[in-house]
């Protein structure tokens, strides 16, 4: 089996564990420590930020314009609206600055 297939299989098992795990584990505890809960709450923003920040730093004006517009749209619109706005700005800006 190729490495890619192992990654997919292990990723699938890890994901299923998160989907069933809360019910199996967390519900057995009467209460979660507030600091652990605060840490859990921070997981998505912390992980996702690391996928944006270095990419943004290493990019150029076209990418920055796309991120700024997408960020502004996300304050009002949903995920789809911000994504389309960002993608449109990116494609447009790249026609000029490559």
């Amino acid at each position, binding site marked *: 089996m190729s*490495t*890619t*297939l*192992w*990654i*997919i*299989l*292990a*990723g*699938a098992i*890890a*994901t*299923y564990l*998160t*989907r*069933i*795990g*809360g019910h*199996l*584990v*967390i*519900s057995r505890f009467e209460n979660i420590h*507030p*600091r652990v*809960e*605060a*840490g*859990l*709450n*921070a*997981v*998505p*923003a*912390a*992980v*996702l*930020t*690391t*996928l*944006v*920040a*270095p*990419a943004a*730093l290493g990019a150029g004006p076209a*990418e920055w314009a*796309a*991120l700024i517009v*997408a*960020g502004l749209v*996300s*304050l009002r619109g*949903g*995920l*789809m609206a*911000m*994504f389309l706005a*960002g*993608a449109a700005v*990116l*494609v447009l800006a790249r026609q000029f600055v490559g």
Partner: protein
Amino acid sequence: MRGFKVLERPLLVQKDERRSKEWLMSAEAISENRARSDFWQGVRLSLPVVVAAAPFGLLFGALAVDNGFSVLEAFLMSAMVFGGASQMVGIELFGQHVAPWLIVLSIFAVNFRHVLYSAGIGRRIAHWPVMQQAAGYFILTDPQFAVAERKAEAGETVGFAWYMGLGLPVYVFWVIESALGAVFGKLIPDTHALGIDFLLPIYFLGLVMSFRKRPLWLPVVVASAAASIIAYKTVGSPWHVSIGAVAGVLLAVILPPHHSGVEARP
């Protein structure tokens, strides 16, 4: 999420249907018919989710191929993981030649929020047979949780047929779109001009922004951004992901609980 206001109307329709048909049928036929109409009521509620997820399914397929996946692998990942954001993270790291265990760990980290959904929905579906519960947890996504939780909070029973009606269309379309995206992604000649290489950071920024109402969001984002950039420049990719993530989570753990909005419970 928006678009779930449709919830109320089909319920009334369904009640009317039941009332007019009930006296015609035996008890067994009624329960079978009820399960069927519950299923279709769930399907109706799944439509906005199917529509909203479609572009991301296609995008995932195209990006997966762009990052070195085969069409079959893109299809398998969607069928087995079934978690959009985590799949995007996975293929992005795969394209950066990150160590396999770290890719799996990142998929786990991005999906970790499901633990909370799982703990929440568990009490709503505890009356199902075990195998049905096992299947139910497999399709537990963000909208699935949101819509099911809404139904439960309205005082209604979350039934297996209804739950599957809500989740199965999302699953089936997601897998098909991923495969389609992968097939057509291979045909895109100039991915740079179309901006495909930078669509993921934009998408991830959107996800980051969607969590902005959470306590400590800004400090966590600033800490993770700073740490990941420094790590990227010094230690190098792929470690910036783990280091940046740990920095943000640690900050949330270290700050006094009254900042994090999480109160100690008795």
